């Protein structure tokens, strides 16, 4: 908090996006950014509970987790990782476009981001379908009998009960992540609409910044999920 800024009551000259209870645009932007960072802290703790559960069971049932992990497609997962990293780049470029008043580029980058998001969800749906066909979805029809533990000689088979825990965590973690992606697409639809209306200027593009923070966070969650779920015991 700097020097006293009393008497800034002349709202008329300000950006219409400045809400009445803030002193100036800088305070509003700082508040919005801090608010998003704190929200992301809650998200870290939200996913943190799952990561904690994952680490415990991975420690207990490592061979079974390795066998189950081999059954999901690392190539599709790797492709999705690349897709999301690209989408983070387009988000940054979108903010750059807003800062430099390039409306067409801004809209193009937002569309591209959403396109990457949809590709990610499409590939994810394909992976889920594969798991469904292979009876790897936990529940009544789950079947993981006679699946070899990688590198075991003489050959040992994974305990289906323990593999089921892996798949339960796989579906809950990636499912929650996918839900966050869908919410992200909703946010970006709104950002796109605002960009279309020309609401973002070099001075005011806070929604882009905090929407972008959210998108990056969801990407980072995936950066952790990918090796933990897909790359157990792969050399």
């Amino acid at each position: 908090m700097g020097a006293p800024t009393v008497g800034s009551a002349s709202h008329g000259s300000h950006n219409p996006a400045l809400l009445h209870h803030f002193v100036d645009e800088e305070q509003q932007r700082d508040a919005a950014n801090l608010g998003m960072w704190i929200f992301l802290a809650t998200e870290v703790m939200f996913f943190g509970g799952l990561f904690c559960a994952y680490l415990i069971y991975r420690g207990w049932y490592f061979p079974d987790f390795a066998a189950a992990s081999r059954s999901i497609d690392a190539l599709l997962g790797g492709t999705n990782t690349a897709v999301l990293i690209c989408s983070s780049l387009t988000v940054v470029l979108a903010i750059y476009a807003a800062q430099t008043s390039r409306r067409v580029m801004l809209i193009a980058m937002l569309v591209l981001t959403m396109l990457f998001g949809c590709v990610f969800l499409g590939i994810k749906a394909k992976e889920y379908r594969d798991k469904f066909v292979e009876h790897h979805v936990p529940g009544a029809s789950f079947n993981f009998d006679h699946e070899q533990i990688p590198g075991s000689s003489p050959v040992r088979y994974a305990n289906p009960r323990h593999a089921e825990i892996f798949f339960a965590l796989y579906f809950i973690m990636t499912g929650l992540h996918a839900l966050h992606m869908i919410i992200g697409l909703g946010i970006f639809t709104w950002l796109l609409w605002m960009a279309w209306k020309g609401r973002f200027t070099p001075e005011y593009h806070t929604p882009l910044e905090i929407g972008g923070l959210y998108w990056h966070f969801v990407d980072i969650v995936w950066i952790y999920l990918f090796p933990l779920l897909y790359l157990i015991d792969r050399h």
Partner: protein
Amino acid sequence: MSMATATTQPVERENYLNKHYGVGSWLFTTDHKRIALLYLASITFFFFIGGFFALLIRLELLTPAGDLVQADTYNKLFTQHGMVMVFFFLIPSIPAVLGNFLVPMMVGAKDLAFPRINLLSWYLYIIGGILMLHCMLTGGVDTGWTFYTPFSTAFTNTKIVEAGLAIFVAGFSSILTGLNFVVTIHRMRAPGMTWSRLPLFIWAHYATSIIQILGTPVLAITIVLVAVERTLHLGIFDPKLGGDPLLFQHLFWFYSHPAVYIMILPSMGVVTEIIACFSRKRIFGYSFVALSSIAIAVFGFLVWAHHMFVAGISVYAALVFSILSYAVAVPSAVKVFNWTATLYKGSIHYDAPMLYAFGFLGLFTIGGLTGLFLAALGINVHVTDTYFVVAHFHYIMVGGAVMGYLGGMHFWWPKISGKLYPEGWARLAALIVFIGFNLTFFPQFILGYVGMPRRYYQYPPEFQVLNVLSTAGATILGVGYLLPMIYFLWSMRYGKPAPDNPWNAAGLEWKTASPPPTFNFDKEPVVTWEAYNYEELDAPHKEEVPVAG
């Protein structure tokens, strides 16, 4: 801008209560003060529902036989009592009502940083509350408020998922309140309101918010896992399927132990304000009291497994958690000693808020010290799941948190409503609450220590005398809680108009009108003084005395 200091005819001034009328002006308000009142009405409603269950529990325990309700019903009574009181009364109580009302005013802001998110948080609370009501009306839950697995996921056939959903939704309400407070305290302070000039109420709410932000999501994901395990029959916590029931307890208490500090820290903040005002002194050791709030929040995250000493955790883990649990006592004791030192040679006034603060001091000290009994591994094993534990946490959560809440409601009622409450009745009520509380819960320490387990609806006849005392105390306590509600409502219509600063208290909230205008201050305040400058406030009076003599 002489409006801010005008004290004549406060009734006619435009304020947040009379600026707009009608149901819509309340349901769609973004004014933090109106949202505080929405919360006040909602949590009072749930307080009386939770109290109703408590009453039934105490009536059942009046006699050794299980004669009023069946065992299954009794299980549901204590479960719903716990869930309603913890998640729908205590957690939101001081932060969502007094915090909502006061945090922006105390830092000199027009509103919280995110007024619409503030309203959203109330709606989430209401949605969670409706789900909980529906859950209770259609059968309720019988696991205890702790949802322990695998009973909750594989055995009981009560409404686990619905109760979980209710708490999940209400949890997000709590997260959003905490988020709003932290951003407001960081970014919305008036010019000159430095961190070391903040009222300690703000420091307490800052610490509380940290817990709400970092703890609640863990409970949320735990509830999701319970719901998924229960509906899809997965084996995350079910040992039969390879899962670990202890993992549930770890995750649950990772939130639910710090949740106790969500209840007590704001209460400590309230008590700090009251003690400084009614001792007419600067608070002793400001920075220690401020930082002890943060320390309690931090240590609070490191002690959760003391709820699991008999659950089968390793003895070394238990030792570490025992030591860490003792560590929480240090910042708590710092607060108690600093409050006491503030009283020392103070000019003490025995107004109703101060009576509640005194009640808090005594009851919190007993609750805190018995907490040390429970942190000791040996005694813990002896009294685990007995009434000793029940008495201990009620001394903290009712004796501590609710006393602070009531004290705060009295202290700030003139500011909130613009009316004075009847002081005589308020002092009487404070006395009744204190007597009723001790009569209810002190016998439970003895009951627990001699071996009466909690959550049983029958007991051996030799426990009856103490149980009758406890039930008698509960009825007195009930009267003590009803009284303030009656005279607060009465004062809204018939009470004398309150001056802007009836207590001659420090703090920005007292420098604006009672009730405050919609944007709190007619002119943005500039702070040039330290918090609790009571010596300065009272200086003219001190000089007058020798002249008169």
